[in-house]
């Protein structure tokens, strides 16, 4: 899961380097940020609410 997130971040960096238009860059950036936050939620549930997924 984390490898896939790093792959998405790598694609975000490539979108910057290749000067991709906003219609490609912004959805990619936003999806990556949202998925990174989602990846954090299991830790919150586990350590704060003791709900292990």
């Amino acid at each position: 899961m984390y490898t896939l997130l790093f792959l998405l971040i790598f694609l975000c960096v490539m979108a910057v380097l290749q000067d991709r238009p906003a219609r490609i860059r912004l959805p990619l950036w936003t999806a990556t940020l949202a998925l990174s936050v989602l990846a954090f939620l299991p830790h919150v549930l586990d350590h704060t609410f003791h709900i292990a997924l």
Partner: protein
Amino acid sequence: MSSTTLTPARPSGSAGPAASGAAPLPRRLGMWFAHAYVVGLCGTLAGAYFFQFGLWEYPCPMCLLQRMFFLLSALGPAWIIARSRTGAVTSREWAGGWGWAVVAALLGSTVSAAQVLMHIVPPDPGYAGALFGLHLYTWALIAFLAAALGAGAALFLTSWVEPLDAPAASPALRRAATVTLAVLFVFAASNLLACLLLQGFHWQMPGDPTGYQFFTDLGL
């Protein structure tokens, strides 16, 4: 209201770089700060690499999440730098880039703060080694908050650095853009590789990794 009252305040000597020969200091400083921001965040990742590859301390899943948010926060200023190579940066691009950096840094600080709180009750020794008495996730929290403050300052000082055309008049800034973006590329690629080695071909990874799963999977 007349249109002249809507014109944003300009710093003194705000004629274009072609007219003045070189952009005034505030305009160059604004762009140099974007470079310092990206390189600074990559520097924190370099420190994490020292612990991982120099001291053989494996990063936990939350450590990896913090690395992600460092890279994500650097994306905003990197975008500003990339745009500056093709001409003047618009105020919209400047504000969008720094706004993104603030959001990503604050989300990263949330992850760091959660990890600090996980280990705050004595006699918990904390995760992995410490640097000057503080664990890496504590340093990450400090770095994220400093990054959010810096990016926020860059936002509210926008009128001070406008017009954003300093790179057009500064060969040094254009050269630095290539170097800074290359540094970010190297850290994005190396983090991807390091995570693949750590996690191997598994969806989950242990909370306290003890080796590189990739090599274990291959029977090495």
